[in-house]
């Protein structure tokens, strides 16, 4: 995610799913992406894209969360009540900047390691 957000406009962080564009993106995801479609309506926050308690096992493994350059996102997730231990996930969709859409390879080289 830290890498991908450099490539474009990231819902729900740069813009949440309550805007006209955000609603269109979420509608698409609910219709076309199995992982999103299978989230019960009662578990999905349609503004911030948090799917609550969808991983029955709770937090999966020992991955770090105190990561450089993601503190702003972590803060936002806290505000939204995101809880890894409860098995929450956040639905993220990044609209790529135009320069990454047609010829990603050469441009990737100019990005600092993420």
């Amino acid at each position, binding site marked *: 995610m830290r890498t*991908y957000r450099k490539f474009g406009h990231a819902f729900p962080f740069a813009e949440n799913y309550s805007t006209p564009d955000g609603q269109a993106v979420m509608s*698409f995801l609910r219709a076309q992406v199995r992982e*999103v479609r299978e989230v019960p309506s009662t578990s999905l926050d349609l503004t911030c894209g948090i799917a609550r308690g969808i991983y029955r096992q709770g937090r999966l*493994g020992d*991955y770090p969360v105190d990561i450089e350059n993601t503190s702003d996102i972590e803060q936002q997730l806290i505000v939204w009540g995101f809880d890894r231990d409860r098995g929450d*996930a956040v639905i993220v969709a990044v*609209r*790529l900047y135009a320069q990454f859409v047609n010829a990603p390879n050469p441009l990737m080289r100019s990005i600092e*390691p993420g």
Partner: protein
Amino acid sequence: MPPTWQIHDMARERAQEAWIDDIGSIFLDGFGLPEERAWSADRIAHALGNISYLALAYTTDEPSERRAACGYALYTVPPVPLGNGTYLLWEDAICLRKSVQRSGAPRELFAAITTRSRHQPIGWIGGGLKTLVL
């Protein structure tokens, strides 16, 4: 040096047992899970039968005869474009062995998968995330 990625078009290739073994092993190592939390071979095979692309990462200094993968990523591309005529690359799963985490591998992966996708152009990337970095 970041690992290199091999992209498999799962509409045209069948899952190999070696891939399934590697994915199961990477899953436990990457997430630091005990054996009882393993992703079973049957479920991995089922997942591979329902995706568009499988990406496997290899470090370059491994012997060529039987290279064990050090990372995997599973992607689905819905057949319908998402706005402005571009396609969404949906990341169903991704995991790297701890030894190659934070090696810049996702940057190389992005370039590899967007280039190899039969659906062009890729204008979106998404996923259901629990963690923010690999």
